[in-house]
């Protein structure tokens, strides 16, 4: 982590945001360094295209700086940025699809989040088989359930903010989360792997 970003960690988010809006470059830099990696990860997980991801993240921060004076109060910088990057990447994906002349396709795009084995944490390092089981269990969830799980548990974003990011109402986010967890706890292979981890 960059020194400036670290030094700003003690600053409350609201102050950091207000300071950035006033044009304070160190605050902007702190925000950039704090969220670049997670935004990149999220955007890449949506579009699976490194160049598109990189462009989208840079566009987001460039526009953020240019329009800083017009920005409102945000409760959570992370949620705000996630919401913005999600919208941007989905728009880019739709534009790309149009370019590919898939005219008959109905554009009801939802992010197709994948939980790679590198993302999954288990106690026994290098256990390919165990990671595979967990990865498969998560892949069996619906796209929207996967995204809720990703945002809630991988990115540790509260459900009320997850709802805003996904542009759905809070109850829908709660339902998606509950159904996803219900599906997971019915996956015997998954539970066996996790209980095996615990007993090791």
């Amino acid at each position: 982590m960059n020194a400036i970003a670290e030094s700003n960690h003690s600053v409350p988010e609201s102050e950091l945001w207000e300071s950035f809006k006033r044009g304070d470059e160190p605050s902007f830099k702190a925000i950039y360094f704090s969220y670049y990696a997670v935004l990149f990860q999220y955007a890449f997980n949506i579009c699976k295209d490194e160049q598109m991801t990189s462009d989208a993240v840079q566009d987001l921060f460039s526009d953020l700086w240019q329009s800083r004076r017009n920005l409102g109060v945000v409760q959570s910088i992370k949620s705000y940025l996630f919401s913005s990057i999600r919208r941007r990447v989905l728009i880019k994906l739709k534009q790309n699809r149009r370019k590919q002349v898939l005219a008959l396709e109905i554009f009801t795009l939802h992010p197709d989040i994948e939980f790679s084995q590198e993302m999954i944490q288990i106690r026994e390092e290098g256990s390919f088989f165990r990671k595979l089981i967990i990865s498969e269990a998560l892949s069996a969830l619906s796209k929207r359930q996967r995204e809720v799980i990703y945002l809630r548990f991988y990115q540790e974003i509260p459900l009320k903010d997850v709802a805003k990011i996904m542009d759905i109402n809070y109850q829908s986010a709660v339902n998606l989360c509950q159904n996803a967890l219900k599906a997971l706890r019915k996956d015997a292979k998954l539970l066996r792997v996790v209980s095996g981890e615990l007993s090791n």
Partner: protein
Amino acid sequence: MSKLDKLLASESFLNYVLQKSDEDVAFWKQYIQDHPEQEDTIERAALALLSLQFVRPSVETPYIETHWEQLQSRIRKEAFQEMPRKPFYAQIYFKLTFVSLVAVLLLVFYLTSIQTSHLVLSTGLDQQLVFTFQDDSEVVLEENTKIHFSETWSTDTVRRVWIDGKGKFSVTKSTNLDGTPKRFEVYTDQMLIEVIGTVFSVDTREEPSVILHSGHVDVQLIGSEQRYALSPGQKVHIDQQNKLQISSVLTKTPLSLTKGQVNLSNHSLREISAFIEQTFGIQVYCKDESLLERKVSGLMNVESLDDLIAALEIVFKIKIHKTNDKLMISTFQKTNKLK
């Protein structure tokens, strides 16, 4: 959805599973005691939650630094392109009143915005200013010239300076925290000059131009893809069609003391004096203007200022008197005449 399903997706249950809150742990222990028939479901739900342990993304700081630099460069370029191309002064007299008012307001806004976030240096008529930046880079501002740069210049990942007028930059090499070269960018209202470490002159007046004395610079016309990599001794200017042109190659290379040698190529004593002042930090005085116009070519082997003085005395047939902080140049002829 059952009440238990809701509870098992709650923050409270997560806190219990991850042992984050004593209160929630106590609640769930009590709940299990009160509802033993649900214990199996709760255990499964806990295992499902425990499967959601992830490794956070790790991106190397240098990678982010690189992208941060690119972002800064992009933001500055966009901001610069939005800046007015020429001062408003000339137009104000001839425009209608309401246009004048708008221009004045814009000018006030422009100046205010610069003053709040930028440091401004300017010279008046018949003034010259030598300014040394925190990284020891130097700019010599000619008369009626203005530069400005960010207040956070020394910590910015790219060193940026805006110039309106005429100036000569001597840029020192510098690196970022990750060891990558720290770029130095000079903006005029029409050009972007990208540098790492070098000496060059910029003129934004009648014929906007850049002359490279040593090192390497890239010159780009703002708002166009046209870009030139200049070699030492080359000059690029903007022609009437608003295009970059390498209009001339200077025959005379700037003086430098390299490996104990000074390569003189039809250089005047005036130029050599300026070189001594810059290189050795000592003032050179000479009352005889005609003496200063004398020129010489050739390679001088000099290890020190004293060597150079001795060589110049012989070549130019002059007397150079050295004190702690200055050199006085005079001619030998006076003595000869007395004879």
